């Protein structure tokens, strides 16, 4: 980060001296002055980095030692011979499909509950009292602040091991994310149709269903699809704490030091992620054309 910090300083130094008359005593440059926020950010950043390395006592020398690198090499070597038996591959395919299903159901739940929470969380017109806005936003923020994996670990206690806990965990975190995004887009939606209905004396519920929702629904759709893409990636690893899918398989086989299986599962994960990335890249290009 401090390299980027110096980068930042480069940008400001280039600009400041030009305005000064020749021969005048050189004032300290802008970013170096003690009252400049950039200076303090820079000092703070460097201090944070130094303190981090000092307090963690990483012993990177030991980590990067010949012995440790040898172990790494051996580990990678073992990963080079994946298990390709048809029986195992079909299990792997099933786990990948589970992962996909988890992400799809989780995102769908999140879209539904996100929309339900987004309505009270948004001030839909200028004079809207929006009594529940603060409270629902608080709930959405709390849902969003806790990562999927922590939700999954919490849910394991009440839902047990398996994909259901993982799905709900994805759903809870994504509800927070989508609810917030949905509320923003409802608040920023063009008001023409809604106010046309509103001046006719139509109730808020129907104004939302017949004017606001159709106006914002393409945006809501694209947010949901974007989160789905993220959730496929998240679902793949969620299982590591016991939430089903590819992750659970990985932690099982890795725990037993079955390197061939581990290697196939890792390959499947990477393939899944790359597949999703490529599909969404082409989908976006197709849509923006």
């Amino acid at each position, binding site marked *: *980060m*401090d*390299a*980027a910090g110096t*980068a*930042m300083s*480069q*940008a400001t130094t*280039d600009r400041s001296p030009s305005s000064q008359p020749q021969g005048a005593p050189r004032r300290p440059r802008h970013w170096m002055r003690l009252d400049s*926020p*950039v200076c303090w*950010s820079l000092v703070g950043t460097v201090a*944070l*980095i130094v303190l*981090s*390395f000092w*307090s*963690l006592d*990483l*012993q*990177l020398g030991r*980590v990067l030692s010949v012995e*440790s690198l040898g172990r790494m090499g051996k*580990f990678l070597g073992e990963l080079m011979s994946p298990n390709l038996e048809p029986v195992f591959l079909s299990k792997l395919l099933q786990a990948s*499909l*589970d992962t996909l*299903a*988890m992400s*799809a*159901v989780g995102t*769908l739940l999140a879209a539904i509950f996100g929309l339900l929470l987004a309505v009270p969380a948004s001030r839909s017109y200028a004079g809207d009292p929006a009594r529940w806005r603060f409270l629902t936003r608080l709930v959405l923020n*709390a849902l969003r*602040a*806790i*990562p999927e*994996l*922590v939700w999954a*670990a919490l849910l*394991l*206690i*009440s*839902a*047990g091991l398996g*994909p*259901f806990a993982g799905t709900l965990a994805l759903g809870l975190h994504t509800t927070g994310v989508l609810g917030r995004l949905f509320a923003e887009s409802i608040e920023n939606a063009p008001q023409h149709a809604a106010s046309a209905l509103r001046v*006719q004396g*139509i109730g808020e519920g129907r104004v939302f269903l017949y004017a606001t929702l159709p106006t914002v629904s393409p945006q809501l759709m694209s947010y949901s699809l974007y989160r789905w893409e993220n959730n496929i*990636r998240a679902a793949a*690893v969620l299982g*590591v*704490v016991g939430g*089903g899918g590819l992750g659970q398989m*990985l932690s099982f086989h*890795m725990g037993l030091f079955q390197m061939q299986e581990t290697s196939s599962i*890792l390959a499947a*994960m*990477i393939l899944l*992620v*790359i597949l999703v*990335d490529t599909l969404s890249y082409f989908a976006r290009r197709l849509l923006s054309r």
Partner: protein
Amino acid sequence: MTTGPVSIAVIKDPALRDPAWTRRVFWFVVGCVLLWPALVSTEFRPWVFFETENLKVTTRFLAEFFPPALNPEFLELVAREAWRTVAIATAGTFLALVLAIPLTLLSTTVLSVSSLSGRMHALPFVIRQLIRWLLILLRSVPELIWALVFVRVVGLGPAAGVLAIALTYAGMLGKVYGEILESGEREPATALLRNGAGRMQTFFFSILPCNAKELTSYTIYRWECAIRASTVLGFVGAGGLGQQMDNSMRMFNGSEVATMLIVFILLVGLADLLSTWMRRALQ
């Protein structure tokens, strides 16, 4: 009332019938058919929550959330682990930066001398493409998986977390830095290169000043993400708040979990504020 509710009787009027009705029903049915196998394979059974056995465990666990554990020794432990989480994120982001900068310099097309006169030569093109693939590979493996691998290789502890964040984030930073450089102004760089400036000179005197704000802003944003990630990495044994949370959850200690969740939310909120403030200061 001319604008009253549309009653069922009125819908018989063909002019008021929903023209998209059949389409809506069709897509609804298709959606349900697709959803069914997904619900089966995710073992979607919400009623497990209400089985007496589960309900008892859950209520006991949740009842312990209040009051959160506040005894001084525990708070000290949480403070230490929270700092470690921040430290892992910071060290990881810093190492990622150290890795990402040379990779970006090697892979960006802005610094290509041969492409100044028509097409890029074959060898530089292949090298750039290889580095791009390396970046894709680095970021395709989620940080949690890197952490699992490193825990195996270097043992439990913060080193695994730092290395995991460093590798994944190097891939992300490298890719986004490349995009920022290539979407920014290219003319100053081209002008310098055409006049015989070296690549490093071009970088420091035209590309970096042009894009510094955007690059810094993205790096700070990534640091914020790294704090979230480093908590999660603790769950596989990479140290920090996550590892403590995992321990307390295994012991069903609700009050400790509650304290740590609160600390975690505050920590993420603080990082969010700091990052927003720093990025705004850059504008």
